[in-house]
């Protein structure tokens, strides 16, 4: 089963989620080709061999520097056909998911998003998807010859094996129709661990009392190299930016460790955190529903417990 993998880069390197997509594709057992769009550095491209790509298609067209969805879909659909690949693998993101959907249409492929593990290919091609915002899973058979899979974080383990990949420049003629949306500007938090990709998340709720108290959570996040998150009311009132809000109507995280401070654990919040490996809850109310979903719990005042925890971690790590 040959695979094509769409790689997203950040500062010239494949994002961790794209490394996962490569390792997922490698585990399918056939040859793996990676495709990178826009300017990229050669060393970063060769590096993709380590995660399983034997070949890298590089569409260096400067017009692809920005992630214009339609243009990306055109290029990737063409590569999917040219490479005669059976499966296209992408890691879930605000760019990759819509691109994947469009490529599936253009290629007549079966499509599945939120795929959480390797397919069962014993009889047909079945994938396990997360549904109902993490409250359940379903197994679906993908019936078409070509398949497009958008994988969730942790669908495959990142391991290095393999050697440098050969880089092939790749050109596709693009028309005005491919640039039917224009990105005027973008702003992105820099120097922070991004929430959807974080291995550790420190999250605060209304129990934090106000934005001026986020310092103790940021200190904790810093010793853990963690991203910061929050509950929905916290972003609704404007204590924290919208993109930090976790839950059913926010970011769905899947870290190794989720530390929830002053969050009651409403079902809509839990929907966004139930893929976490380990959950720690700090809340002054012993009856807070979050404790039922936690692995470890501390009943106590956040303003007392969090600084102590930060100090203890500093001493231990």
């Amino acid at each position: 089963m040959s695979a094509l993998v769409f790689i997203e880069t950040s500062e010239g390197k494949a994002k961790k989620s794209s490394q996962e997509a490569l390792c997922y594709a490698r585990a399918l057992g056939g040859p793996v080709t990676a495709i990178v769009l826009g300017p990229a550095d050669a060393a970063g491209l060769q590096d993709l061999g380590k995660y399983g790509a034997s070949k890298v298609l590089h569409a260096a067209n400067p017009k692809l520097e920005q992630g214009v969805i339609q243009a990306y879909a055109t290029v990737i659909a063409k590569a999917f056909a040219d490479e005669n690949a059976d499966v296209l693998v992408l890691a879930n993101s605000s760019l990759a998911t819509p691109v994947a959907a469009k490529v599936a249409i253009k290629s007549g492929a079966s499509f599945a998003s939120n795929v959480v593990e390797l397919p069962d290919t014993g009889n047909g091609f079945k994938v396990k998807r997360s549904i109902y915002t993490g409250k359940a899973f379903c197994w679906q058979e993908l019936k078409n010859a070509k398949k497009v899979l958008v994988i969730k974080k942790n669908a495959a383990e990142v391991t290095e094996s393999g050697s440098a990949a050969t880089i092939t420049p790749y050109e596709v003629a693009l028309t005005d129709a491919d640039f039917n949306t224009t990105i005027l500007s973008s702003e992105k938090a820099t120097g922070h661990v991004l929430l959807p990709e974080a291995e550790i998340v420190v999250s605060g709720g209304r129990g934090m009392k106000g934005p001026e108290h986020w310092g103790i959570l940021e200190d904790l996040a810093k010793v853990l190299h963690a991203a910061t998150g929050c509950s929905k009311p916290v972003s609704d009132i404007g204590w924290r930016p919208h993109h930090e809000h976790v839950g059913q109507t926010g970011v769905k995280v899947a870290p190794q460790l989720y530390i929830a401070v002053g969050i009651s654990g409403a079902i809509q919040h839990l929907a966004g955190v139930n893929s976490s490996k380990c959950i720690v809850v700090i809340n002054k109310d012993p009856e807070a529903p979050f404790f039922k979903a936690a692995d470890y719990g501390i009943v106590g005042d956040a303003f007392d417990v969090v600084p102590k925890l930060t100090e203890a971690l500093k001493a231990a790590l």
Partner: protein
Amino acid sequence: MKILVCISHVPDTTSKINFTDNNTKLDAAGVQFIIGPYDDYALARAIELKEANPGTTVTVLNVGTADTEPTIRKALAIGADDAIRVNAEPVDSFFVASQVAEHAKGFDLILMGRESIDYNSGVVHAMVGDLLGLPSVSPVMKLDIEGAKVKMTREIEGGKEQVEASLPLIAGCQEPIAEWKIPNMRGIMSAKTKPLKVAEPVTVAASVALSKFELPAPKGAVKMIPADAVAELVSKLKNEAKVL
């Protein structure tokens, strides 16, 4: 201007999910169905645009069986003018997108939610965009029409971007694009007589088939740690959970 709002009919966000029929069907017992929360934002923005631009009409569309009609009537009560129900089980995103594409022709603005909260695919807008050759943008937090141009704020990982496109256009909406609207008495009364057209689906070859549903493994009991023993927590995270 003609606006189409696509709404999904999904279990309320507080629902516990269970399955019946040997794990092949959602157990609807005790589940309350609602307009998808993101679709509610799309509808609210559509109504705002209608109020600000005389002559604008808002049509809602749902792909679903007759069970979804109370949800569609609620959208009419909130202020949509008329509705279309495509009479079919929404089996997968491609099927839904194909049905939407069939009915979306002739609309200037097609608003959806960023994702349905049952399958969370977040792709119907992108698929319809490709099927109709129209721009599609999601998740949109702000949408303003300036002549034939539409200016939008789209959320991306760790930030946002400003995007511009021309009508006709498809947008997947999320907060804070508009405040959810609650139907008033007059809306509820008038919704009963607003037109709700039932259309038969166009034929689409199924590209995926459900095998079975599965629930996550139950979580083990929580281990409580005294507030004055944070060092114990650190050691457990390191040596027991092995997450540090």
